[in-house]
């Protein structure tokens, strides 16, 4: 039984997800507290060229598991290889980024290893041997503290909830002889929305609701572009067919933790407020001064969003030069 930490660092198309670096940063902190080593593993094909990036956040050892079957995410092949890595490294804690694929992997891995799992954590604490994770439940209306019992604990960490911390480690890169077993899932096709920042990883989100009045989100896209952020939507806007399901923020959509959340023409239904409750700073722009969103915002502007939003975009461009 080791006292080390293993981080599964997720990449897609040869680029690490930001949460992979956040997981390594948090893994380093936990490994120091446990007095153990930090191992980071990256699965894929041709990933040896990027593996070294994980050293910047303090990985002692970096394992590269390369196989054609791991080029694209498939939960069966990934679970098999990660379980084999766990068997070799024998860590006390495994960290995974809580992306859509990371959550899928973590759940199946927990079942295979019969290990306790805290999904979508926003905080992790070690008191001696006890691992306590903080995680939003009820779509973010409540925060739960959960303790994980066992010698091997798994935590999937929410993107944007843990900071990045650079530190030095030997960053020794080793090849892990990956055996994906006999996977049943076959890859057919992948489609990525190019140039789009995913809501869960965005530092800034500009969201529109019923007040947008239609599917023309140009003014929100312009503001999001100026802030290098992403565009989200309320359930009403999605139900109206103005925006895709993947843009929905809320209890039955995505729960997000950006640094800045700008809600435009969103009244603030309880499900939406839950989904954005872990944003650091919230701004509401709405013409109705009684809209519930104002009570859950740090700053509010009462006004016509079609006038206010373009003006905000202009001001942002001035500040950003």
């Amino acid at each position, binding site marked *: 039984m080791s006292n080390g930490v293993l981080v599964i660092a997720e990449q897609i198309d040869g680029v690490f997800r930001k949460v992979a670096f956040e997981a390594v940063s948090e893994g380093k902190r936990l490994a120091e507290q446990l007095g153990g080593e930090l191992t980071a593993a990256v699965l894929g094909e041709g990933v040896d060229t990027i593996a070294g990036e994980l050293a910047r956040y303090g990985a002692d050892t970096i394992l590269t598991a390369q196989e054609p079957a791991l080029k694209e995410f498939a939960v069966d092949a990934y679970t098999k290889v990660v379980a084999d890595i766990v068997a070799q490294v024998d860590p006390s804690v495994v960290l995974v980024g809580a992306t859509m694929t990371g959550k899928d992997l973590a759940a199946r891995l927990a079942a295979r290893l019969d290990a306790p799992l805290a999904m979508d954590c926003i905080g992790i604490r070690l008191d001696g041997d006890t691992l306590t994770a903080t995680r939003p439940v009820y779509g973010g209306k409540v*925060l739960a503290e959960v303790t994980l019992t066992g010698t091997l604990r798994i935590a999937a960490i929410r993107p944007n909830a843990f900071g990045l911390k650079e530190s030095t480690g030997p960053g020794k890169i080793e090849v892990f002889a990956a055996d994906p077993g006999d996977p049943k899932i076959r890859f057919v096709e992948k489609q990525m929305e190019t140039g*789009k920042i995913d809501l869960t990883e965005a530092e800034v989100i500009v969201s529109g609701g019923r007040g947008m009045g239609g599917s023309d989100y140009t003014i929100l896209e312009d503001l999001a572009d100026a802030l290098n952020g992403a565009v989200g939507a309320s359930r009403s806007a999605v139900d109206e067919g103005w925006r895709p399901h993947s843009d929905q923020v809320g209890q039955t959509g995505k729960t997000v933790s950006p640094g800045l959340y700008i809600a435009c023409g969103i009244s603030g239904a309880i499900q939406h407020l839950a989904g954005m409750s872990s944003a650091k700073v919230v701004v509401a722009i709405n013409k109705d001064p009684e809209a519930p969103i104002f009570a859950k915002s*740090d700053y509010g502007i009462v006004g016509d969003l079609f006038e206010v939003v373009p003006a905000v975009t202009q*001001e942002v461009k001035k500040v950003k030069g």
Partner: protein
Amino acid sequence: MDIIVLLKQVPATESVISIADDGKHIETENLKWVINPYDEFAVEEALQIKQKQGGGTVTLLSVGTDKTVEALRTGLAMGADKAILVKDPAAEEADGLGIARILAAVIKTLDCDLILAGQRAVDDDAYIVGPAVAEMLDIPHIAMVIKEEITDGAVRCTRTIDGGTLIQDVPLPALLTTQRGLNEPRYASLPGIMKAKKKPIDIRSLADIGLEAGAVAPKVRVTALKTPPERTSGRIIEGDSARAKAAELVRVLHQEAKVI
């Protein structure tokens, strides 16, 4: 085609959630309970598949309490054929893996080609049960499915990933978890509601399905529930014009909040 749908009853998403005096549970009085919205997609998809395939059964399977019967009746009223409820005091504090173990134990006694489940329940937001059941049954699963097509003992799924979609093939039997966009769940019709009253709900204890309480002892325990920190300032930015308000907003975001 015989399909099993994993179903959980949860508080409706419009519910205000309050923490009970013990600090570990929520107040359950006065809550409106519904089928987990992602499980509703699963029920709907199962009914559509059964119709397309020209036969078979749709069985709802849940772990819950007496109250859960209401959610199962709703699913039966939508058109499912029968339901199984595992009800046992020992199951009430089970974690995701414990619930999955119970569901898998029941499924092992049934014949099925396909299992459908919600990607997560909107109460504990754990995303664990579906994949864990598949693992315990040693069958493949695909999560977050927005489109599926069954042909010749296999299913082609489109699933969401962060920033895009992935299309994958998997042989049956398999488990799929649902993502918003898969379908629009139907409402139960009045004849459906009448028929549902006569459809069987088989209630079993852990002993009935050959599990001991120890098999579902939780390794993940909730030690405290808290309300997220409230936003205190709630400052309304005043100004003579949209432009003036915008300038002041950007100034405070840049200089005070330092998020721009």
